[in-house]
């Protein structure tokens, strides 16, 4: 298998100004993972856990404070803007808010054509417009001109998100970061967008980093899932394995609290207390210790190592041997 992207010990700290001493939000703290060709890796976590920051560091919208990112065999960490231009086409990103993904003063066609022009795709404007039209028709956004001449505010969220995906896919990227790309959409449109993403994956063999807070969506979309909490990886495993056999208490809680439409109603809750913590100058030990019902002394003093408990299933927890 071809390795598309590898992140090694990535760090992103945000300073908080206070009189006296400096504090840091350790939004991404020593996170390592890799994505193979055509694979969808889910990044699962609650708000403020660092998943969006992780996506932005990888796509070079933010600069990391440490660690390395290898993309198609090149180290792109700390790379400057000009050099990154060579990778832009190969690495694309889709954001959460479809309504805001297009310049409100530009027609859809202009928003679609500009990146192609900048990255030298298509020989002429005419050619590019043809490519766009064909792609639109293939994505069942027909008749294409009905959409292309419009301004973003004239379209619905589902339509915009599909066009937004199209915009990325026209560049034929080998890697795509989808940052909460369905969280603002209604259930009925959400499925269409997810399926479109799956279709792209199978057609272009694009690897996808699928960032989400919804474990049900992650299960539907991903080959592997990485669970993060307060800037740290808690567990990483094959999607089916993670959901059927969660090891980390946090993963167990996430699964237990996730609403379902299955008939067996009276399940046993794996209850935990408290709310998500922001990792501001986090104390030593496991980040989850303050909420973990099983936390022992060691959990508060020593950081747990990643352990491979079965092939491909890694957990960071002191309680698991």
């Amino acid at each position, binding site marked *: 298998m071809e390795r598309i992207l590898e992140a090694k010990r990535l760090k992103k700290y945000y300073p908080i100004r206070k009189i006296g001493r400096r504090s840091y939000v350790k939004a991404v703290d020593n996170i390592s993972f890799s994505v193979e060709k055509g694979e969808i890796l889910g990044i699962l976590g*609650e*708000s403020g856990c660092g998943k969006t920051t992780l996506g932005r560091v990888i796509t070079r919208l933010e600069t990391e404070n440490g660690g390395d990112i290898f993309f198609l065999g090149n180290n792109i960490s700390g790379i400057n803007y000009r050099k990154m231009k060579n990778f832009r086409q190969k690495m694309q990103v889709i954001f959460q808010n479809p309504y805001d993904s297009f310049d409100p003063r530009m027609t859809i066609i202009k928003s679609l054509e500009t990146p192609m022009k900048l990255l030298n795709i298509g020989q002429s404007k005419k050619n590019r417009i043809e490519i766009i039209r064909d792609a639109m028709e293939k994505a*069942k956004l027909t008749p294409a001109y009905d959409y292309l001449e419009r301004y973003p505010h004239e379209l*619905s969220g*589902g*339509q915009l998100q599909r066009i937004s995906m199209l915009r990325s896919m026209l560049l034929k990227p080998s890697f795509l970061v989808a940052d909460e790309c369905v969280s603002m959409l*209604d*259930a*009925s*449109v*959400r*499925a*269409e*967008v*997810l*399926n479109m993403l799956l279709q792209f994956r199978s057609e272009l063999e694009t690897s996808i980093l699928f960032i989400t*807070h*919804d*474990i*049900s*969506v992650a*299960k*539907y979309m991903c080959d592997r899932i990485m669970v993060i909490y307060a800037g740290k990886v808690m567990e990483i495993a094959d999607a*089916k394995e993670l*959901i059927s056999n969660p090891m980390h208490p946090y993963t167990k*809680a*996430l*699964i*237990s*609290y*996730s*609403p*379902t*439409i*299955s*008939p*067996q*109603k009276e399940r046993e*809750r794996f*209850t*935990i*207390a408290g*709310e*998500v913590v922001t990792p501001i100058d986090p104390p030593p030990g496991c980040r989850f210790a303050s909420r973990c019902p099983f936390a022992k002394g060691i959990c508060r003093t020593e950081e747990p190592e990643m352990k491979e408990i079965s092939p491909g299933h890694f957990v960071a927890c002191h309680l698991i041997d």
Partner: protein
Amino acid sequence: MLNMPFMRLKKVDISYKLENASVKAVRSFSCDIEKGDIVGIVGESGSGKSTLALGIMRLLPPNALLSAEIMSFDGKNILNLNQDELRRIRWKEISIVFQKAMNALSPVHKIFTQMYDVITAHSSDIPKGRAYKMLTELFGKINLPSKVLNMYPHELSGGMMQRVMIAMSLIHNPKMIIFDEVTTALDVITQGQLLDEIKRLVKEFGLTAIIITHDIGVVNEVCNKVAVMYAGELLEYGRVKDVIFSPLHPYTKALVKSHPDLRIGNELIKGIPGSLPDLTYPSKGCIFYPRCDVRLDLCKDVKPKISVLGDHIVKCHRIQG
């Protein structure tokens, strides 16, 4: 009014007057709610569910027009009450918890001040000391520390604020509470904790509740009945196990099919093509006609009647009751 149910809504219409159009947000909504029910009103954005909640509370903005055949609650007609009578019913009989808890309290007043004002709005002769004791007790029931009373809203997390709002809704022991998307902005675990809390409180206080949500998973977790709304109309109403596990209306069926679920096998989810109809136009036939995959010719021009199958209500030409 002996055989009247606890709450009866019959042919409720709500429209908003805009500059040069009028939006029919709720159309001919009818349903009965029995004492002790937890009714989920589920629908996507634009389905009119939140407008309906405001209509029941008679809290609609001045540009909204409300009309109904019957709107009764606990033997009282709430359609014809004047402002003063309404004021006395609000919170004593029905209270509401809004989605955006962070904005639901004044940012420059302490929580106790606001709680105390709510107390004195209906029972003016309670001294502060007693109110404080009463609130401490109430907060205890919702797992809120009493020190929260002396804090300002911005000092609390989203989950905490939502608890505060629930506590506030309980102050005058109302008979019914409407929860309007109360968990939408919250993380999965916090949402789960809060839903558990709501379930417990409804039992403990002998409440009747309406839970408005876009997530059928949430409905399945807490409700015993569910009303499915689409573009302002009620399409299906009945017990949760009937409506979700053996839906009759094509829309409900599609909605269930578009829901990725953790505990149900890995089948393909499907979206509903098309988008919401323009609510500024009156619809002649079935409101779901343009997106329905099993539509009949009849559906285009003839409004389906409500079919009653025991306690399961459906509005579809294909179902005969």
